[in-house]
Structure formats: C-alpha cells, structure tokens
C-alpha cells in the first residue's frame, strides 16, 4: 500500500508516493545516500535508486555553458585588445620611446657641443697660460735687469762714499800727524833750548821730527 508524503518545497507542494518495506516500489535509498544532495531536496527524501542522484558535472567533459561563456568573453576581450586597447597603449608607448630617443639624441648633441666648448675653453686657457708665463718671464727679466742696474749704481755710490770717507780719514790722519809733528817739534825745540840755552832752528827740528815720524811709520 502506497503512502502519500506531501512536502512544501521551493516550487510549491510536492507529493511523493512511498511504498512500505516489502511492498512493490519500496526503496531503501534517500538523497542522503547521494554524494550531492540536489538543491531544494531534503536528505531524507526517498529515491528509487542511486541512478537518481545528481552526479554533478563530469570532471573531464566540457560543459556547453562554460564553453560558450568562456568563448564569448575571450573573443570580446581579444577583439577589444586587437582594435582598441593594444593599439592605444602601443601608440603612447611608441610616442614616449620616440620622445626619449629624441631627448637622448638632443642630449648627445648638447654633450658634443659642451665637449667642443670645453675643448675651446681649454685651448684658450692654454693660450692665456702661455701668454701669462711669457709675461711673467719678461717681467722677471726686466726686474732682474733693473735689479742689476740698481745694484751696480748702489755699488758705485758705496764705492764713491767709501773713497770719500777714506780721503776724509787720510786728511784727518795727516792733519793729526801735522799737529802731532808740530807739537813734538815745539816740545823738542823747547827741550833743546832748555838743554843748550839756545833755540834750535825750527825748520831743522821740524825736518828731524818728520823723519823720525816717517821712519816710525815705516817700521
């Protein structure tokens, strides 16, 4: 005898006729025996056999819906990439690359120009240095010549002054000697007068004194 089981599922009331054990149509299986319980089904719901179970998708066989959604998505993406996305990106990449190359070439040109300027500056600097060295040498030669001239003049002046000094010394020496000779002659005349009572000839005394003094100097 069949028993009616009424359940309220997601799609309204459902009636299931269940046979009692031993009767025809009896099944010992429920959805709980399946690996996957179908959505909206109760695990205790009786099924006639395991062949009613939802085995889920095959792990190997492709599913049409996945194939078409995947294909559609990819084809759209590839078309966008081919006609819009990639050309746009590539154009701006190429433009930047061209700008970089142009800037690079410009920098190279500027570097070459700067190198030319540096070499021109260096050659000008070398010229100036050579000129400065020549001027320094000329100035040094001029200074040396002037120094030599001035030194000669100074030496001449010193010699003249030395000669004048020597002359002055000689004159003073002669004057002193004459004074000494006069004094000695006076003393000697007086001594002779005191000794002999008669005054000697002053010229003789003077001559004798001169001779004695001269011989003394010669000795």
């Amino acid at each position, binding site marked *: 005898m069949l028993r009616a089981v009424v359940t309220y599922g997601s799609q309204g009331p459902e009636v299931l006729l269940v046979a009692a054990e031993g009767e025809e149509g009896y099944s010992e299986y429920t959805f709980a025996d399946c690996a996957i319980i179908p959505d909206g089904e109760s695990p205790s719901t009786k099924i006639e056999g395991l062949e009613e179970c939802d085995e889920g998708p095959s792990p190997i066989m492709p599913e049409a819906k996945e194939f078409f959604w*995947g294909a559609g998505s990819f084809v759209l993406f*590839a078309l966008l*990439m*081919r006609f819009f*996305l990639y050309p746009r*990106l590539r154009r701006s*990449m190429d433009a930047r690359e061209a700008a970089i190359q142009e800037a690079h070439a410009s920098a190279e040109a500027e570097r070459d120009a700067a190198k030319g300027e540096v070499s021109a500056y260096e050659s000008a600097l070398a010229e100036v240095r050579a000129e400065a060295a020549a001027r320094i040498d000329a100035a040094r030669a001029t200074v040396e010549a002037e120094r030599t001239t001035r030194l000669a003049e100074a030496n001449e002046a010193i010699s003249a002054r030395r000669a004048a000094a020597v002359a002055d010394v000689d004159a003073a020496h002669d004057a002193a000697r004459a004074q000494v000779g006069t004094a000695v002659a006076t003393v000697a005349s007086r001594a002779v007068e005191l000794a002999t009572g008669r005054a000697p000839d002053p010229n003789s005394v003077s001559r004798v004194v001169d001779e004695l003094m001269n011989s003394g100097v010669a000795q």
Partner: protein
Amino acid sequence: MLALEFPPINEILRWQDVFPSFNKIAIIAVAAALIGTLIFLIAGNADGSKAPRGVRNLAEAIVEFIEGQIIMPTMGRDGLGWTPFLLSIFSFIYLCNVPGIIPIIQMPATARMAIPLFLSLLVWIVFIGVGFKHQGLGYLKSSLFPPGVPAALYILVTPIEFISTFLVRPFSLTVRLFANMLAGHILLVTFALLTESLVQGGNIALVPVGILPFFMLVFLTAFEVLVAFLQAYIFTILAAVYIGGAAHPEH
C-alpha cells in the same frame, strides 16, 4: 581514525547556476575579460609621456614580456603583429587561473575543460590558417613531409607528423592547462580538508599535527601563484611557437 571524507571530484567542481546557464566558471571568465579590459583601458588612459606607474606600468610590463620573452624568441620581429592575440591569451588565461587562490572564489576557471578547449581550438585554427595563408598547400607538404628525411621513412614519419601536428597539439594544449590547474585545485582542497579534519576532529592530541597540512596548504597556495603564471606563459609560448612555425617553417 580521522574519518576524513574526501568529496568526489564531481562535487568540488559543481557550482550552482547564478541564473540559468551562468555558473561560477562563467562568472570567472566574464570577470577575467572585464578585468583585463579594465587594466588595459586604464593603462591606455594614463599619461603616456611620463614614466609608467601603477596599472600602466603593469600593462606595459605585460606587453614587453609578451614581445620580448615570447614573440621575439619564437617568431622574431615579423611576429610582433601577433602581440594583441597572444597578449589576450596570456592575460585571459592568467586571470582565469588566479581565482584558484583568491579566498571565497577559490576556483580556477581553467580547471574545467571548456575554456582550455576553446582556447586550444582557437590556436589550432589560427596556426593552421596561418600555415595555409603563408605557404598555401605547401603547408601540408612542409608539415607532413619534413625535408631531409629519406623518402622511405615518410611511410612512418607522415602519419606521425599528421597526428602530432594536427591532432595532438590542441589536445596537449588543452590537457596541459586543464590538468595542471585541476590538480592544483584538488591539492588545495585535499590539504584544506585534512587541516580541518585534524583541527576540528575532536581529538585534542591531533590538533597540533594539523599545522603540518596547514603549512603545506600555505605553501601550495603560494606555489599555485607561480603555476597560474607558468601555465599562462606555457600556453602562450606554445601558441606562438605553433603560429611562428606555420608562418616560417624554415625556423
């Protein structure tokens, strides 16, 4: 006993439709196309005369990566016209791979067969088309009868070349991407479930042990970041090799 119940693979790949015929994989595919478009749109709107920054820097890095690391070594300067196509493939696959490690989403769209299959078929059509465009019917001759092989060996070589060039290439492209991403997804699920079983299993002694699969989970998550990039790169470079080979068989 840990009583670890690993769900069937079908269950971890089963997603309820958001609306009829639109499930999580479709959401990820649409989001990948939108995000990719947005990235290159923002990059294109940025001031191109200044040094690139942010999103523009990212977009230019991807373009230069595709041109410098994929096209130039495999196709040469002549292949630069293929940049938008290969750029789309790389970006789309990467953006479909990455959700595998994004919390809550945690599903790479390429771990399902449909998207890798479509992309492989597209590459297959493109490289065969390029072959006929550049060489005419000579493409079949250069593909099936490689020069320098003794004539007697063509009995063996020609069927092998036909199978490898025209049948195996799309299959291997599909399976390489799909299987790698699905394997990564299953590994993450495995270690996440193991960690949960050990930590919440009710046995206090096993709780500290739960840190081991947790560390493995963290390591694999980081590894999946690399795998997401690597698989996108491998798919794209193979596509470039196939197209370049069809256009210039002498290379």
